[in-house]
């Protein structure tokens, strides 16, 4: 079974293309279409589900949009899958950038650059053998904790004083110099 997911938004381009090539593929296809308007004719579909874990487990191949929420969720399952950048967003470029970077780090992601060629990517994915993905450690919570427990550094006041003194010195310097000129 091939499972296609587009998240909570819509990704008509991908849904339409999968629906078009569906009769040619031997596998059964299920699409989660989100809030998209186009309803697939050649495959099973549904809008939302409380949890997609069931489909992740059953599927032999996963296809998703480039939303990092879903990408990291599927990475945790360890399955290989195809990701396509959805350009129909407020900032069209950020999913492209993200997918390029993450597909270099994690070999289980096959980044599909051109949705119209997705059938060739599906063929490629069947032979593809990914290596295990090493998670980048997250120390954000520790960093925040460290930051919260350290008291406000008093450096800032010292720096301010330093700045005031520095500007005062330069001012005095200028006055002295002009005074010296007057004497000459």
């Amino acid at each position, binding site marked *: 079974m091939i499972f296609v997911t587009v998240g*909570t938004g819509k990704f008509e381009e991908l849904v339409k293309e999968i629906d078009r090539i569906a009769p040619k593929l031997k596998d059964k296809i299920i699409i989660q279409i989100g809030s998209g308007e186009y309803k697939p004719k050649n495959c099973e579909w549904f809008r939302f589900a409380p949890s997609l874990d069931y489909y992740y487990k059953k599927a032999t191949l996963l296809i998703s949009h480039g*939303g*990092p*929420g879903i*990408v*990291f969720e599927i*990475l945790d399952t360890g399955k290989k899958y195809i990701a396509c950048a959805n350009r129909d967003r*407020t*900032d069209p*470029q*950020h*999913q492209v*950038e*993200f997918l*390029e*970077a993450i597909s270099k780090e994690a070999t289980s992601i096959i980044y599909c650059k051109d949705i119209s060629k997705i059938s060739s990517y599906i063929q490629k994915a069947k032979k593809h053998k990914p290596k295990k993905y090493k*998670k*980048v*450690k*997250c*120390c*954000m*919570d520790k*960093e*925040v*904790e460290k*930051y*919260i427990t350290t008291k*406000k*550094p008093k*450096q*800032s006041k010292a720096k301010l004083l330093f700045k005031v003194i520095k500007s005062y010195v330069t001012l005095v310097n200028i006055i002295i110099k002009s005074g010296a000129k007057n004497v000459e």
Partner: protein
Amino acid sequence: MVKPHVAIVLGSGGHTRQMLRLVDNLGKKYKYTYLIADTDKTSEKHIKIRGKVYKIKDTRLKTDTSLIKIILKYIPSTINVISTLNKIRPNFIIACGPAMCLHTLVLAKYLFGARLIFFESWVRVKSKSISGRQIYPFFTDNDLFMVQWKTLLKSYPCAKFVGRLG
């Protein structure tokens, strides 16, 4: 000892997901208060660690950028933010975008003396986000700015790389 009071600005969708992952990792050491955009209906359900929830008028513009609309959105929202921050009085405020975190952070810092924590979204690999670009100049030594990709350190020299929430 009194728990430090942390205000959390939830965005929507992916922003909320990342923020709540961070809050789950931080645990119950702090007192949390959540700020949510009034247009956002799904975020509140996902909160696991309880805290008071306040709604703020959203200022998100998407593609719309005419000056009159910006002013019409920001003035009521600013008044709204000041009155809620006055009730909360946070020691720290954490945000990661989108648009409604901008004036909230600036007002919290300069009117209420809160210390700011901001992190860039995990999608941002090389390019800055709009809210990140606009809020970065307000960050001094007293505040914490974090990124989730090492490549972003080039564009934010004072930021800290902290790994990825995913």
